[in-house]
């Protein structure tokens, strides 16, 4: 046995070792762990994992605290995959919530989850349930907050979400810009590393993925917002980065060369259009936009009417040789929603988040053939089959049919060649013409674009107008 004085001194030494332990723990390890490994804090300041933990079954919570976060997230994600294939979409919603809490860095969960909310809850005619859009926005925002340096999520937010789904081009441009800033900043760091000889860290990792997605995307988004000159600058920036990447990869990556060629072609076309469109849009064009809404049965409508589109039937950019005439390919958007509805910002996507069963939103589009909206038959919109999606609880509804010149889905490029990026070629005296004047006139909460001209027709219907029997025409 040791003497008591020896014991005491050893005990004191052992306890004094808690000083370096405390220092290591609180000064060095904790901040690093929190920054790089810990589940991120939610916006309301509560630790994300503990919040998730309080909602999780005990086994998950246990696993979550013991280094199995990612394993559990991975396994749940496999399970989600099965639900996708079975079409059991409702089961996926809470799982996605849990998975991204457990592992906030699995990018494809945000991507797939948001895509699923945007597109996969549909009615019998494959129209998506737009009540899920606020959740999709919240999930993607969370994903970006947790993975600020991942261009993929910005691209998803900007393109799949705001451009394709919500058709809010200013917001699409906003997210592309943020993504591009990340890529550009990374490229600057990589370049510096290259200059000081850190070859191994100079793979432009991230930049090579990002230049195609957010780089090109940002250029397009600028164009769709009527900022053609800025788009030219952006295309040049993309070309610059493509060239750097080709140099770094010593020409071993063929796809990089192809990417450069794409950007180069886009820039040349844009410059060509910048040259000819100011000329071709000079003569005002009356498109004769006359949509008619016909109720054919309770909750069943047909959108018909006319839109006379003129576009470039032939356009050789190099020579300027072009020929205009009536063209197909335009599209009319239609939206029906509760009169007071605005796209809500739900802040955060939680386990309790659910759609409001009393809200009715329907959005559809009709292609224009031979100057007729929806062709000879019109576009039939049947809302009588899906009572959950179309509950029609509100007393009054706003129905909007519109044509947006800057939306390439509505106005194909050859039509834009005649009416311009923002509808400069439209005759302001025609029926249903509106100069938006920096105000948003589209339903929901779509950001305004200064100088945008549109063709819009709005009806206000009562519930009786919608659910009533027999044919009724709304002009």
């Amino acid at each position, binding site marked *: 046995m040791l003497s008591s004085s020896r014991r005491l001194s050893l005990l004191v030494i052992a306890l004094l070792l808690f000083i370096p332990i405390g220092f290591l723990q609180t000064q060095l390890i904790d901040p690093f762990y929190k920054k790089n490994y810990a589940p991120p804090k939610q916006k309301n300041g509560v630790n994300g994992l503990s919040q998730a933990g309080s909602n999780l079954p005990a086994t998950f919570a246990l696993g979550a*605290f013991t280094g199995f*976060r990612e394993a559990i997230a991975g396994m749940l994600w496999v399970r989600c995959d099965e639900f996708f294939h079975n079409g059991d979409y409702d089961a996926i919603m809470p799982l996605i919530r849990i998975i991204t809490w457990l592992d906030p860095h699995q990018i494809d969960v945000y991507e797939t989850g948001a895509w699923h909310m945007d597109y996969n809850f549909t009615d019998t005619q494959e129209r998506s349930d737009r009540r899920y859009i606020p959740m999709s926005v919240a999930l993607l925002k969370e994903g970006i907050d947790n993975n600020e340096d991942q261009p993929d999520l910005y691209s998803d937010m900007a393109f799949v979400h705001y451009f394709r789904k919500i058709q809010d081009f200013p917001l699409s441009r906003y997210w592309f810009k943020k993504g591009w800033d990340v890529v550009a900043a990374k490229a600057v760091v990589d370049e510096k590393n290259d200059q000081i000889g850190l070859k191994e860290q100079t793979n432009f990792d991230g930049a090579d993925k990002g230049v195609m997605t957010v780089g090109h995307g940002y250029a397009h988004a600028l164009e769709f917002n009527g900022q053609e000159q800025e788009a030219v600058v952006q295309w040049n920036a993309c070309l610059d980065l493509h060239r750097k990447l080709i140099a770094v990869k010593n020409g071993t990556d063929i796809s990089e060369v192809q990417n450069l060629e794409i950007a180069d072609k886009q820039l040349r076309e844009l410059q060509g259009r910048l040259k000819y469109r100011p000329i071709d849009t000079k003569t005002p064009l009356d498109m004769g936009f006359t949509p008619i809404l016909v109720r054919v049965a309770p909750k069943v409508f047909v959108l018909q009417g006319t839109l006379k589109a003129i576009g470039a039937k032939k356009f050789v950019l190099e020579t300027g040789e072009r020929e205009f005439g009536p063209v197909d390919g335009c599209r009319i958007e239609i939206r029906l929603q509760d009169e007071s509805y605005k796209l809500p910002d739900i802040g955060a996507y939680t386990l309790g988040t659910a759609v409001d069963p009393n809200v009715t939103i329907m959005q559809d589009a009709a292609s224009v053939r031979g100057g007729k909206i929806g062709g000879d038959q019109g576009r039939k919109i049947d809302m009588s089959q899906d009572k959950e999606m179309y509950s029609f609880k509100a007393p009054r509804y706003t129905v909007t049919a519109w044509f947006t010149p800057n939306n390439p889905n509505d106005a194909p490029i050859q039509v834009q060649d005649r009416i311009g990026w923002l509808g400069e070629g439209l005759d302001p005296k025609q029926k249903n013409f509106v100069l938006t004047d920096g105000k948003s006139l589209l339903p929901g909460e779509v950001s305004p674009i200064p100088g945008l001209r549109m063709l819009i027709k709005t009806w206000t219907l009562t519930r009786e107008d919608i659910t009533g029997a027999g044919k009724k025409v709304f002009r």
Partner: protein
Amino acid sequence: MKTIWLIASGTFGEAMRRKVLLIFLFAGLAIILMGVAFAGLATQARDLTVTKSLGLGVISLAGVFISVILYITLIPQEIERRTIYSILSKPVQRYQFLCGKFLGGLMTVLLNIALMGIVFILLVAGKQWFQYGVNPGPAMLSLSKGILMIFFQMTLLGAVAMFFSVFLSPFVNFFLTFAVWLLGNASSLTEALADPTSDPNHPKSAIVVGIFKVVHVIIPNFANYNIQNPIINPHEHITNEPIYIAWNILYAIVYTAILLTVGSLIFDKREV
């Protein structure tokens, strides 16, 4: 030191024959094999995410069971079988015996984790190389980092179990060590409790903050060693990760030294 090494090697030889440990080793290897063989996932990224996270999780769980079950019995078993009498009646100090036992246990844990780790890394590398045609080098390196951290987590956990085994029965020790492990994994919670600004709506008194600070420092922190996330999501880049790993290795060594010192002091007075 020679004495410690002798006792360690005797312990290692004996521990490697423990059937219960072999069960966890083979169960771990079987799950790893199944996880790697698991096909039918949509994309390469998802497949590897699941494979890597499952494999690291299984190695760490098997490691926890192996080290806890091993360390809670190392000392009590010596007493029960009376081998301790013939050893301690030789010129062996009690602390040498304790440290030797710890080291022998650690060699066993290291071998078990290394076996699972090597099999796992090779399988993932094979999958990347043959199935997806991806250079497996970076993944092999990052998985090795994860397994290294699992090993040091088990070092610390083993030291906790061995410390308790000096004065507790294996049964009580099993639950206590597990409780400490869970608590040490929830270090973000104790840290939040010790943070006066963590919840602006409910300000905490200085005493409460102080108590939780002490608790946060005293409880061995196991969550630090869970660095799987960037390994599983390779797009996550962490600067200065080697320094962080070095801090945690240092933490494990210093904390183990505390536990072994205090454990030796208690064991020195313990009647066997």
